[in-house]
């Protein structure tokens, strides 16, 4: 049967042999994928291995050889670095929680009240295309204005100073990550049949029960995916703590940057980077295991 005689309604099941007729790339696709694979190996794999190698180097000089775990030990021996690690973890965890709560409500509302949905999704995604420095600058100006208004109203006596605080850092990270979280949860909730919600209500479930017993279980895959990526983004962020922390709140990414840019401590910076990656891997591995269990019916 040739393609020219193959007349069938769109959406109908493909006839026998359709899989064979799917256009095949020459050499199974290896030739076409070669440029990207070589590029990724050269620009990601090799650099990543270089970071691990450098973190084990004897001295902080460029291209130093040898093998030592001293740079890792130094990290955990220095109170300043441990403090930075704790800051990073607190910021990341709090950001994930807040983003998840707002993202869940957002996605749920968009599912049950889909008016202007396309417009709202476009507006939600548009800020992601705008420069991060600009968005943080805008947030700082906005927070100063809010503080001014509150002082003028007599609600607070002194400026809030949110534009240079831990709270400010978390606010900025939530601002950056919320669209991703909301869309991840929204994708999960698209499997939710809204008539099930009505049925739950008819059968006497309260508002809270509907959310916790019906909506939340469906939202979990989106929350986990969004949460893992938000954690990685928050823990790995440099520019947000740099601009919103006002130089007072240190995080691991800032330590990495300072080690390289101010004192050329390559091995130290690389050890910090490896420690950061290990931290990021924890929720990724945890979520992978957890979602496997969820898929196979475990509780």
């Amino acid at each position, binding site marked *: 049967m040739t393609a020219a005689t193959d007349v069938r309604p769109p959406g109908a099941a493909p006839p026998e042999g359709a899989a064979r007729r799917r256009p095949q790339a020459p050499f199974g696709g290896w030739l076409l994928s070669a440029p990207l694979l070589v590029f990724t190996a050269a620009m990601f794999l*090799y650099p990543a291995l270089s970071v691990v190698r450098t973190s084990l180097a004897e001295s902080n000089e460029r291209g130093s050889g040898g093998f030592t775990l001293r740079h890792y030990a130094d990290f955990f021996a220095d109170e300043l670095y441990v403090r930075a690690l704790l800051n990073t973890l607190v910021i990341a965890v709090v950001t994930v929680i807040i983003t998840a709560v707002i993202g869940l409500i*957002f996605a749920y509302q968009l599912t049950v009240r889909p008016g202007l*949905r396309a417009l709202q999704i476009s507006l939600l995604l548009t800020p992601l295309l705008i420069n991060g420095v600009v968005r943080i600058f805008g947030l700082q100006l906005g927070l100063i204005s809010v503080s001014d208004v509150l002082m003028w109203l007599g609600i607070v006596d002194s400026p809030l100073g949110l534009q240079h605080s831990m709270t400010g850092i978390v606010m900025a990270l939530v601002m950056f990550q919320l669209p991703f979280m909301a869309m991840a949860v929204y994708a999960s909730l698209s499997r939710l049949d809204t008539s099930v919600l009505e049925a739950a209500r008819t059968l006497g479930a309260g508002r809270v029960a509907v959310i916790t017993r019906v909506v939340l279980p469906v939202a979990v895959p989106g929350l986990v995916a969004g949460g893992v990526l938000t954690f990685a983004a928050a823990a790995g962020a440099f520019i947000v703590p740099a601009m919103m922390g006002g130089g007072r709140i240190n995080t691991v990414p800032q330590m990495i940057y300072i080690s390289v840019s101010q004192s050329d401590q390559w091995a130290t910076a690389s050890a910090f980077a490896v420690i950061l990656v290990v931290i990021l891997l924890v929720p990724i591995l945890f979520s992978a295991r957890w979602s496997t269990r969820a898929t196979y019916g475990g509780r």
Partner: protein
Amino acid sequence: MTTVTTRARRTRQPVSLFTLLVTALLLLPLLVVALAALHPDEYLLFPPDGISLRWFGEALEHPSFRRSLVLSLQIAVASVIVGLLLTVPAAIALTRGNRRVRRTLQGATVTPLVTPDMLIALGILIMLSQFALSSSMVGLVLGHVLVGVPLAIQVLVAGLAGVDPNLEQAAQTLGASRTRAFLTVTLPSILPAIGSAAVFLFIFSFDNVSISLFLASPGQTTLPITMYQYLEYNADPTVAAMSTILIVVGVASALLLGRLGGLGQLAGAGRARR
């Protein structure tokens, strides 16, 4: 399918006030910057007590802003070209290759996606120093391409998946060679997807902070880095005006992506590239 359901149910769907409020809050900082840039005097005031466009001229005349804007544009254009040359063939391999090719490519694009930019940058910096490459331009372009690749691939694969393979088959049956059938039938129908991929590659390069911060050399800083360093010491209407120009670039990209149909793919990018 979505458009059909939307049209069928268009009869007054309820709009959520919560989602409207959140969306507005996310857009508010941008509005604040744009309005602050209109203030006529030499300090920032929000809301402005006058309207003036003089700071837009000042921002574009400012020597270091101007120099880094030109550099950022050059790097972004180079990233688009290099990025498309890598991702278009890879996207074809992803849709038409065998299973092992597909799995390898997925691994190669997903892993950099979940790695923080600054770790990628540190690795590239160490590598460049190993090979004693002094030109930061090459490092910047390739580093920016790396972070733009996952989304570009995703957009292209979605575009290719939408093409009916029977059309290309028909062209071959009618006597076109395999290459010609692809170039004349499939390629034109994925042009919007290629356009979307190009916009993403451009904007991810143009907006990048973390990679540029590590790889830019003192004389050659990209615009976001110049603005970040400028903002450490002064926040004035000049930088607000430059920020507004970047907001316009971002909104223009969003509108363009809306036309090309790639905007929705952004949701799958997973996280902001900072």
